[in-house]
């Protein structure tokens, strides 16, 4: 399967998808958080190398920023790059974990030759701020191999073959056993392997290796699996630290817009409005950004977003961004809004969302019990909508139905005289760990008028009422 292919290899994708790793030494840890798997250039300059134990890395560079890989985010980042690549080729293939393959033979005319494509690619890559190694190849595997080996550009098949012969066998991504076998035979470059009689090779090292060689040279077809972009553009990223100034959102946003551009380009569409949501830890903030006639270029959208964000005061730090496109140029304007009378009015969920939008999210909530011996910590407030927690365990002791927001002091003389202690004490002591320690003896007490209250005496000897029984 010959032709011309372009491979984009993003060796530090997992690390660089964290947006703030450019200015300081940073390293990515494995899933056990023990060893370093990727380092940026600054960390490398300090002597930190992949494979190093975290403790030794820290002893070399105490300020090293440590990040943990997130498989989900990583995958979505690669998909984003797939969308982004739409501007260069209609035939894009994702090569997990960190590569994108593009068919370019059919695109050379559009870009006026390979050099034109290369120039254009370089310009666009710069905006992404991702480390990238690029290579062409006369087969998909050749392109990948050359990218993994540091990059190479050529149009001619024979030049590709010459270069391939020099590729170290370690780049072949063979399993460890095969790799060490080849090493054990003193073979280190692809050319040496290709020079051996292929029958003897297949006999000794298995058919799979021979097939792989055939795929690299093009003697055997090796069609890639193409990436099918989603129907709707909807991309989210998690920021690796909390952003407090709206202006600082521009950097991560740029990548999303670049991806959008690729997406739109591949479908020959223009976007009319973007929905940008700023994710906070608890809630989110929606921004709608529109363009009168519709627009495709990331630059243009970035400017619009910039204007919008400039006016914005962040009340809370932002931890993630989400970008959706609802309106492409072909769509008719004027959709129904939330208060349209045709909506079913009686559904409880609808009622809740109505109340929420009328009163604001802060005003509504649900109470759920949580495991803590201290009465004031034994419940918490959840947002009005959303899932219930998995388990809800309440204290087995006698608890009043009405717990006061905060305990109210009692006149000590009354306790034991007009206020009678009926039951108790139940001693509650704990919470030393979070600056709200309590040490109290709780009693059920009866007031002269027959009311039953939940009272306690604290460590200082003061008496308080903390709740009322029904």
């Amino acid at each position: 399967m010959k032709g011309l292919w372009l491979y984009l290899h993003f060796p530090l994708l997992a690390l660089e998808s964290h947006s703030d790793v450019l200015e300081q030494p940073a390293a990515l840890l494995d899933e056990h958080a023990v060893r370093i798997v990727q380092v940026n250039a600054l960390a490398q300059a300090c002597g930190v190398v992949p494979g190093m134990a975290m403790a030794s890395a820290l002893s070399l560079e105490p300020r090293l920023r440590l990040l943990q890989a997130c498989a989900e985010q990583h995958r979505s980042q690669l998909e984003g790059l797939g969308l982004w690549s739409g501007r260069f080729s209609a035939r894009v293939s994702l090569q997990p974990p960190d590569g994108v393959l593009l068919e370019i033979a059919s695109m050379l005319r559009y870009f006026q030759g390979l050099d034109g494509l290369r120039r254009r690619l370089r310009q666009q890559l710069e905006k992404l701020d991702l480390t990238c190694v690029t290579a062409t190849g006369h087969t998909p595997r050749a392109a990948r191999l050359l990218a993994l080996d540091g990059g190479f550009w050529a149009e001619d098949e024979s030049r590709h073959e010459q270069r391939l012969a020099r590729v170290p066998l370690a780049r072949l991504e063979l399993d460890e056993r095969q790799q060490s076998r080849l090493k054990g035979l003193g073979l280190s470059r692809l050319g040496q392997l290709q020079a051996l009689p292929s029958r003897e090779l297949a006999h000794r090292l298995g058919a799979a290796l021979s097939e792989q060689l055939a795929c690299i040279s093009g003697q055997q077809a090796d069609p890639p699996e193409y990436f099918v972009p989603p129907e709707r553009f909807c991309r989210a990223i998690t920021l690796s630290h909390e952003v407090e100034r709206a202006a600082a959102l521009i950097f991560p946003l740029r990548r999303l817009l670049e991806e959008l551009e690729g997406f739109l380009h591949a479908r020959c569409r223009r976007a009319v409005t973007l929905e940008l949501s700023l994710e906070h830890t608890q809630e989110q903030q929606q921004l709608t950004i529109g363009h009168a006639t519709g627009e495709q270029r990331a630059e243009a959208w970035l400017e619009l977003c910039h204007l919008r964000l400039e006016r914005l005061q962040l009340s809370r730090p932002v931890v993630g961004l989400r970008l959706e496109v609802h309106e492409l140029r072909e769509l008719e304007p004027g959709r129904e809004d939330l208060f349209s009378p045709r909506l079913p009015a009686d559904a409880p969920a609808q009622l809740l969302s109505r109340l929420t939008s009328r009163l604001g999210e802060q005003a509504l909530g649900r109470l759920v019990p949580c495991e803590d011996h201290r009465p004031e910590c034994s419940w918490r407030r959840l947002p009005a909508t959303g899932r219930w927690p998995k388990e809800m365990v309440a204290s087995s002791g006698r608890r009043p139905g009405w717990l006061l927001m905060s305990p109210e002091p009692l006149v000590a003389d009354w306790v034991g005289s007009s206020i009678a202690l009926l039951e108790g004490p139940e001693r509650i002591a704990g919470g030393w760990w979070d600056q709200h320690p309590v040490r109290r003896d709780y009693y059920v007490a009866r007031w002269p008028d027959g009311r039953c209250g939940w009272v306690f005496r604290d460590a200082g000897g003061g008496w308080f009422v903390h709740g009322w029984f029904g």
Partner: protein
Amino acid sequence: MAGLADRQLADDSPGARHSPLAFAELHCLSNFSFLRGASHPEELVRRASELGYRALAITDECSVAGVVRAWQEACVVGLKLLVGAEFRFADERLVILAQTRQGYARLCALITLGRRRAPKGQYWLDWQDLDQLDDCLLLYRPGDDPNEAERRAGWLLERYAGRCWWLYERLLGPADEERRRWQLALADRLRMPMVCGNAVLMHHPDRQRLQDVVTAIRHGVSVHRAGFLLEGNAERHLRSLRKLEQLYGVEMIAETVAIAERCGFDLGELRYEYPAELVPPRMSAAEWLAQRVREGEQVRFPEGASDDLRRQIDHELRLIGRMGYEHFFLTIEDIVRFARSRGILCQGRGSAANSVVCYCLGITEVDPRQATLLFERFISEERGEPPDIDVDFEHERREEVIQYIYQRYGRERAGLAATVISYRTRSALRDVGKALGLDPLYLNWLSSQLDRRAGQRSWLEELRALGGENPSPRFVLLVELIEEILGFPRHLSQHVGGFVISSGPLSELVPVENAAMSERSLIQWNKDDLEALGLLKVDVLALGMLSAIRRTLDMLGERRGKPFPMQDIPVDDSEVYDMLSNGDSVGVFQVESRAQMNMLPRLRPRCYYDLVVEVAIVRPGPIQGDMVHPYLRRRDGLEEVSYPDEAMRKVLERTLGIPIFQEQVIQLAMVAGGFSPGEADQLRRAMAAWRRSGTIAEYQDKLRAGMRARGYDGEFAERICQQIEGFGQYGFPESHAASFALLVYVSAWLKCHHPAAFCCGLLNSQPMGFYSPSQLVQDAQRHGVEVRPVDINASDWDSSLEGDRIMRLGFRLIKGLPRDAAERLMAARPETGFGSIDEARRCVELNSREWEALAASGALNGLGGHRYQARWELLDSDPRLALGEARAAEAQVVELPAPDEQQDVVEDFRHVGVSLGRHPMAMLRERYAASGPLKGCLPAATLTNHEHGKLVRVAGLVTTRQRPGTSSGVTFVTLEDETGPVNVVVWRDTAQAQRQALLNAGILQVTGTLEKEGQVVHVIAGRLTDISELWQQLRLKSRDFH
């Protein structure tokens, strides 16, 4: 309606000592209920005594591991201690208390039953298992279900009428009142007597924080998320009498005392008898021991023992008889006799080395005539504690000895002592940090910032400093709680080899549980516990050097055609001492470390006793006491040998007036510091426990005062105190040194006269010692030994001799080649050897991994030409299959290019660990010396020709990096080039400035100042350069000793 006075509780302060009320706590867990209890047994006992309790029961969960410590404390404060255990059945609890020695045996048997059934650290018991509990009292605490409680209580009453109680515990939790109501009613209806208890987990309510933390650790959550897993309050502590009276009323409290009075068992009653079967019928143990000693005497002193020796033997035998230790000696003699019959080398050490009886019995090897000064100290009658006899066996054959013990006495009568694994700095930081919800990354970072060699105290200071000027509240908690949890036991593990052997079932003496190693069982007490109770244990230890010596002697015996016993080695061979005095000691027992190698040329040993000193002097004790230099000065005649007085002369004469040994320091404390023998003994114990407790200061103060009062120099006293701390870190008594010195001499003699055989012996006993096989082989080569490579047609499993100074490396060095594969290969090997790889594959069936290991090691080079070609041939189909025949005809011959010298060396190191080719540094030097980065680098061997103080440059493979605890912040690096090792000293500042090169380099270039003292040469590092990239492929694993 209750009034205020009834409802309000008394506080927890003692105060009420005079109260007429008598109370005994019957349900109390220590921190030996791992990660449940939050107080040490000693703390519980002390607090109970302060509060005026009549008695305290320690009832750890299915365990008596903490009772000995509690008992020792109880003896001191004069509190009655009950022994018992708690058992959990779902939410019900049963507390069992031992009334008598018999009841205690039943309790131990029950614990053993539950523990032996379950994996390490757990127990499985059922109510049905409670059938043999004579002489025990049972306290039942129900769970939440009254119906279940009624059924269970009825069942118990039926079986244990008059011996079981309803245990009521009012812990002021939620629903307390309701529980109280139904329990009172039910117990009353069933006519089950009620008694109160408090399910104690801590001695004082202040421990609540730690109690919460250990609970969180146990459940693997943080305290913030632990919720109802935590106790709701701090009531599970030892409560004041006033409060108890309020909570339970006098009747239930009186019942606790009645129960305590029915328990008369005291741990001090435990005596156990050594197995009697070793003594022939109609003979007393004493007679039999005397006979054995007489027999041994004739072997040890064929010319007849002198009168002095006779008198000593009689004296020792009388003492042994008075203390009743005959069986102990006979038991050890029996084990040693077994080992000898199997040709397993063994040697006793410890204070036994002071005994002529032990020498005659063959337990020790130190001839008392060689070290007459030593045997004044053996069993001490006043101390009344069992003699300490450790026996070392060949490390690879110790298992045979252990199996013999199990087989001879049965698993039910022999068990290993436990080692209590306790919280130490790092584990405490990790677990407490997690429990406080700190980020694991942050904890790892903290941990990496701390110097692991520092003591625990300074470690805590360092940790505190990491919190900054204004530490966060959580950080403050972290430090406080770590400080509290240090020393808390976490689990039991097996002692390295301390056996307890009894005449009856062991499980009636102490519970037995499973060890992590299958087929091993351990008892619930450690060696301190055993010592406190006066129980004897036999230490069966493993020593690699004994294996190496035995193998070397076997090889020499084979060559000369008759056995070569250790006794045939001539004593006081001056060539051996010359060799050692040159610091030429690679592979020699004990004195091969770099520090020892530096000491040897300064001390220049000339006789056996010099070796004893040599072994003991390079230790924290003498170094911290600054005794090394005075001793050397006196030896060299630079300083006069003098003694302050006659008493001191007696103690210090053998070491020229300078205290070197731990024994001498203890004697000094008596002679010069006025310590009584009892106090001196406490000092010895305090030194041994210093790492754990850190309390030695009071003895130091007493010693200073005592010495001042007797007119000794204050500076001298101060040094003795420093030395005491050093011994606390690493105690090294003279009696150990004496036994070890024998092996030093024997191994040095072998190295000196039979370097090839000795090197084989060491290689065949790996892993052991300080040096890698590569270093051992290079050393042998430097001593004129010809070393031949592993070869399929010439090698044995072991490395072997092919001439007096010619050795052949064995198959055992090949990584990934199992022994049985090599054995099959050797069995199938024709007399003339295999002619080709093809022939070898037809004759022997090995799997592909094993063939690959052979090819990788270069063992097939004789047949295939080189490794690459050998592998290519091995990848062809199996010649024994029919398919192979058909293929042979059509196969195309491929000749692969041979590896170059460097590739061969890399594979040698990777697959054999030893290379006989040129040293990597020789290759590098050839390539880079003229103009490259190695320009001006001096070979190691030429350093002695240069002047002290000269600026030099050296380069080599990094073989060790070491930061000894005795040197403040210095890192010692050993480089190795083709001519030998270079010792590099890196001061702290240099190390910090050039960390990267220091920590990462595989090949290091050092520019620095040459330091020469006699024959000892160092390079004090100035600049370190990592030049590893010069040899990218060579990844020699440096042995890092941090």
